[in-house]
């Protein structure tokens, strides 16, 4: 037996709704009108909320936070493809997805105001808190999927998000490997927004696509236009269906762009050209989606006006609610070291409260 080819692979790309809002009807996914409108609602809400959060941060009313503008399709469309019984395992840039999952904007603001209370979301019991250690969340996503099957939930799927930069971490590799070996129902959504802070994709990896990384695990994958809600939804829905059917995990590379700063602490003009940003502005996912909805007669200017007003009001009342909050229990942190307080923690809590009194006395 001489030299011969033993395996062949390919990577597919999917786009349905193009930059000009033209749709490829053969590929159009089935989405109910209600769901289409829900999706649009949350994409717009995400964008407006994002804008508001950044403003609040600039005014010193919130701490450092990440910007999401441009990635709304890439974040919200996958979220539409799962249901409440499924798990949502995010990184930190999935604002719109979290809102769709039922988290309130008040919680988001609490978190970015430095309170763990923002990560306590009993109304969304299957949405995990944001994860900052890059790619580490993918591993617990895989474990969650294993647990759901083991506990007899034959229907549950885990949706897990990760960035392009984070694919360089060992945990990314270990998670995809475990998922494929265990054949667990996880759908990995890669937000390929072209940058990891200042580092562009080509310094991050030598491969032209992230989708091809799934080949290392014989895992289905696809690259999609991440600013095209229809493509992102369709690819995710197919992957979710496979996962539910017991056919294991998938990787979706969603090609998108972070239009603003990495976080409010970042200055993107240091590492990228305005022209690049402008190019991507033309591919905006919301503009494109709106055109599609309008053409399908699901949308019009008066609906838009009402939506804008509703969202402005919602954000406004959330900010008010958030700003009215006070009275955060100072020693709360001692409550969450262990289920049962240890002696040392008990002593330290007492010392803490004693010192607090002292500090207050000292002004």
């Amino acid at each position, binding site marked *: 037996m001489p030299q011969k080819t033993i395996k062949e692979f390919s990577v597919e790309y999917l786009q349905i709704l193009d930059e000009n809002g033209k749709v490829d009807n053969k590929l159009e996914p089935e989405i109910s009108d209600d769901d289409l409108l829900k999706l649009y609602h949350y994409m717009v809400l995400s964008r407006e909320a994002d804008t508001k959060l950044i403003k609040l941060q600039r005014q010193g009313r919130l701490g450092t936070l990440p910007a999401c503008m441009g990635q709304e399709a890439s974040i919200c469309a996958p979220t539409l493809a799962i249901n409440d019984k499924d798990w949502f395992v995010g990184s930190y840039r999935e604002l719109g997805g979290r809102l769709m999952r039922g988290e309130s904007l008040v919680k988001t603001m609490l978190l970015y105001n430095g309170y763990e209370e923002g990560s306590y979301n009993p109304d969304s019991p299957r949405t995990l808190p944001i994860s900052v250690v890059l790619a580490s969340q993918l591993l*617990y996503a895989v474990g969650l999927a294993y*647990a759901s099957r083991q506990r007899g939930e034959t229907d549950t799927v885990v949706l897990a998000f990760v960035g392009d930069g984070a694919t360089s971490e060992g945990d990314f590799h270990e998670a995809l490997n475990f998922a494929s070996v265990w054949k667990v129902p996880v759908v990995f959504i890669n937000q390929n927004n072209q940058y990891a802070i200042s580092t562009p994709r080509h310094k991050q990896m030598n491969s032209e696509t992230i989708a091809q990384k799934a080949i290392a695990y014989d895992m289905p994958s696809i690259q999609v236009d991440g600013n095209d809600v229809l493509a992102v939804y369709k690819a995710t829905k197919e992957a979710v269906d496979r996962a539910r059917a017991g056919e294991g995990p998938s990787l979706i590379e969603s090609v998108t762009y972070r239009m603003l700063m990495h976080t409010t602490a970042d200055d993107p003009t240091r590492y990228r050209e305005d022209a690049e940003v402008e190019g991507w502005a033309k591919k905006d996912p919301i503009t494109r989606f709106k055109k599609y909805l309008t053409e399908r007669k699901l949308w019009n200017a008066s609906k838009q006006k009402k939506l804008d007003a509703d969202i402005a009001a919602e954000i406004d009342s959330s900010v008010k609610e958030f700003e009215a909050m006070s009275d955060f229990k100072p020693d709360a942190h001692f409550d969450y070291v*262990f289920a049962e307080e240890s002696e*040392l923690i008990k002593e330290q809590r007492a010392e803490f409260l004693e010192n607090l009194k002292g500090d207050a006395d000292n002004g």
Partner: protein
Amino acid sequence: MAKMNMIQAINLALHREMEGDDSVLVMGEDVAVNGGVFRATEGLLEKFGDKRVIDTPLAEAGIVGTATGMAIGGLKPVTEMQFSGFSYNMFHQLEGNASRMRARSRGQFTVPLVIRMPFGGGVRALEHHSESKEVYYAHTPGIKVVIPSRPANAFALLRAAIQDPDPVIFMEPKRSYRSFKGDVADNPEPMQIGKAEIVQGGKDITVISWGAMFHDTQQVVEELQADSDISIELLDLLTISPMDAVTIAESVKKTGRCVVVQEAHRSFGPASEIIAHINDRALMYLEAPVKRVTMYDTTVPLFGRELLYLPSKGHIRKAIQETIDF
């Protein structure tokens, strides 16, 4: 009541917990078909099947990371790190997620996870197979660190660890796995994590040790007591973190003297924390400096020299003697 060695006691504890609770599962490198490289998990696969006894891919972060997810999702994974020396591959997972999930989510998500790992020297092993670095774990909030010394307490404490609603690092002194047998009651009084054991009372000096070193220490104590009229209070620490500062301090208040014997490196080692607790609670009772008998601050040598670098009985004896004579 049966006589067994520590490996058998650990194995029995795993059997009992898996029988008693469907959500308990065991996972790690070579734990299923092979029964673990030390045979701690032998027989589990046959009894509980490959969904609850999992030969994982070879990746420690993968093991602890996925186990964290399983624990969040309602299971109780008992993971094995084949040797503690390879557990550092998962350190970011433990520090970053498992140890923090309760605090991060205000109790919404919790991680009842056990990480078993053989540790320590004296078994003529390759590099990375002989270290005692319990401090890395003990300095991390949100996790408990337990080190048994005997079959009976290994059995009881591992069961307590599996039942614990928080992450527990269960470090097994591999030198004691098969070196002796002890009585293990199949249904003993449960042991509580967080308590040191006063193995014998005494009034002249407090001697504290844990893990494999506990046995050398105990022998020296017995020899010294046979040879002289020194009355020694001997403590087996058992839980490294959170440390039982009260029991330590009460003992030292009584004896006024203390020697700590550990396999860990000296600098920033557990003995320093013990000394700090004594400082906080019993300083004025001290009649001599607390002596630290430890591994040195060199990389742990390969086995050709390891016995020279591990605390020797001579070294322990000398430390006790000097502290008494101070």
